[in-house]
């Protein structure tokens, strides 16, 4: 499997937000403003690459070796949550500038299904270490792309005449569906 294929596949074809429909809560929660959407995207890229690395290591070096694959989900949850907490502490001490930018988004990612999902998909496809690293990054970029696109749309939704009953989250979900349809067009590319 070529790297280009992985990248295109993860960003567009199997976009984590719009094709897999994972990570819906940050998708709706942080997409009201472009500013927060960008911050969230950056944080996801940062965390997902780290999580992708560490879960691959855990899976391949421990779970497979000791025949404990059925513990995958629970151990991934534990590891990702600890990792995010650890990164938060590390950033606060060592890179305060980065912490100031990403700080408030990090706790939101602790239990993010998009991160979890991407890690699980990586091991499911039995990618190599480097491949899973690239895939994690690409998934995160796809997440960012979809979120920023969506934020751009949502910032303009206020211009439109939305029926009272469909305001805010409802129209958000409808819009998300329409954008997802657009992304459907990528199907079959890879």
């Amino acid at each position, binding site marked *: 499997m070529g790297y280009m294929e992985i990248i295109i596949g993860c960003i567009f074809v199997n976009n984590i937000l719009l094709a897999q429909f994972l990570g819906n809560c940050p998708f709706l929660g942080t997409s009201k403003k472009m500013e927060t959407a960008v911050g969230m995207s950056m944080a996801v890229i940062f965390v997902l690459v780290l999580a992708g690395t560490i879960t691959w290591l855990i899976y391949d070096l421990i779970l497979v070796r000791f025949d404990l694959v059925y513990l995958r989900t629970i151990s991934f949850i*534990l590891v990702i949550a600890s990792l995010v907490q650890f990164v938060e502490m590390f950033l606060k001490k*060592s890179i305060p500038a980065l912490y100031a930018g990403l700080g408030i988004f990090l706790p939101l990612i602790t239990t993010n299904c998009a991160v979890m999902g991407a890690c699980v998909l990586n091991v499911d496809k039995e990618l190599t270490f480097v491949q899973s690293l690239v895939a994690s990054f690409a998934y995160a970029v796809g997440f960012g792309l979809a979120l920023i696109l969506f934020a751009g749309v949502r910032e303009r939704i*206020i211009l439109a005449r939305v029926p009272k009953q469909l305001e805010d989250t409802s129209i958000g979900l409808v819009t998300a569906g329409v954008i997802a349809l657009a992304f459907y067009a990528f199907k079959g590319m890879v």
Partner: protein
Amino acid sequence: MTAFLFMLGIGGACGIVLAVASRVFYVYEDPRIAEIESLTSGANCGGCGYTGCAAAATAVVGKKAKPSVCVIAGMEAATAIAQVMGMDPGTAETLLSENECRGGDRAEDKYEYMGVTSCSAIDSIHGGKRVCSIGCLGYGDCIKACIFDAIEMGPENYPVVIESKCVGCGACQTACPKNIIKVKTMSDRLLTFNQFDAALSPCAQTCPAEIDIPKYIRQIREGDYEGSVHTIRERNPLLLSCGRVCPHPCEDKCRRDIEDEEPVSINQMKRFVADFEMNSGSRFNIPCAPSTGKKVAVIGGGPAGLSCAFFLRRLGHDVEIFDMMPKLGGMIRYGIPEYRLPKKVLEWEIEGILNLGIKSHVNVKLGQDITVDSLKEKGFDAIFMGIGAWKDYNLGIEGEDLNGCYTGIDFLSRFSLTQHGDSDEKIFVGKKCVVIGGGNTAIDCVRTLVRLGADEVSIVYRRTRKEMPANMVEIEAAEHEGINFHFLAAPNKVVADENGNVKGLEYLKMELGEPDESGRRRPVPIEGSETVLDTDMLVTAIGQGPDVSFKETDIALENLETTRWSTIDSADPETLQTNIPYIFTGGDSATGASLVVEAIGGGRRAARSIHLYLNGEEVTPVKRSLFKTHIPGTIFESVPGIEQSTRTEMPELPVDERIKTFEEADLVITQKDAIKESKRCLDCCRICYNRDVAA
């Protein structure tokens, strides 16, 4: 079994790593943050405007938020938090939201756009559909943003803040695309100055003290006299005095004046609410910000000094006033006669200011009893010099120093001292008195002389009545009181009798020539027109300047820069900071002899600069400041749709009664008249104006 061991292992490993990390990457956090966080609700609701309870606690410790930040925990928690911070919860500054637009459906529409339901949407289409580029768009984004139901749509289709419900979270401010609804602390409001992009009526733009005139008039209309007093006091602490003596330049720009030819009687209404407070028997509460521990010395207890001290005190600084005279008040005590501003009234007003916790020292003169160095030794961090303009100008003509010749301010202040028992000097009053000059001081002199029993009082002015700088009301009152006016008369020399006393004033008759740079037609003497006016007392009141003799006796002030009019120089008339960074100036000592209201505005401007200086910030002018100018396009040629109405007349004591006493000559309008007059106000905003709603 393996599974159990594995989970135990991975759990233990994660736990240990995190425990070690929390040690290794420990960042010192103020323990008070955790303590305060435990006192908040813990709901992370965001109602306070911060991203969570931890962020709010950090803000409290950083003194960016008040102890009552948590909107859920309530007053008890606020008290507990205040205790953690060592603050008194009562004095903490409350944030309140305020809709600064008084707009509504007034400005013309630019276009019709159906279907938009939010301000931010309509704002993105050519800045809204109304012509007014400043005002409220009226779709209520702030109402939707407020989770405390503290904003509602008012009867005139613009949002109104319900103060009792507002917690100051700032959600409305974030939601408003036009930056009209703002959350401010009291200090923020006290330090607000007119800006080019603010929604300001022509009168509020013109007022040197920048009082929000339409707002206080509206409050009178609604019967909220206390609110009205607070509105005025946010800009002008001397409302009783200004309500009596202000020449109200605001009324000259009143839009009602354009069509109706009679402006709204703005100043009369100020006097009405000011008197209302005085006669109510109690003082309205004036809140002050928590103490900052910084000390400021205010030299000169005149209007500028009192205003500066008042605002600095309310901003939380410790202020002490030093004055050379036996009582505070400066020129408004010693330069303005009793019949215009009774001392009892002034006394009450000054007492209210000193009650805020301002110390005063009288009979101390700069350069003699105190010096800048002695003040610095006492621990003052900044000095405000509001020394006023007490030195009368001389005519520079022959015989000016004869017996029976006086100067204006000198005469008025000496008389004022004797009148109130602060001096036992015998004031000489002539039979036939002549006063030279056309300003308010000259009029004050003639009207005082009439009351002192002079048989005949004349005023000599080198231009015509139209050019007199004195207030029109004053000129008219003087005419009613029987003063002889000699216009177009330039004093030539003072004639002496054989004993060296004044016998007469020789003057040249003048005619008006070409206009000079001030737009007034320059008087030109007529050759050979010398005339002598018999007199036994001559008062020169042709203007005055600051007395800067302290420069010779105070070493620290030797290098204080002064202008050629001997006013204290400040690099920028908006910051009022002198070349010695910790010395600030304002009032007459900065501008030369000018209006009381100008000095009050200057005092507040200086207070802002001193506040910045004491906080270690750069002393810069206000951004986009509207200083002594008008917002382009807001001064109209015509205002259609005005219904004619007559201005409320000012009640006065009858002439034959008033010229015998120093009783206050101008009286206050009645409540009925005040409300009637308040309805004449068009409540102008910026481009919109209120078409007369036939009430």
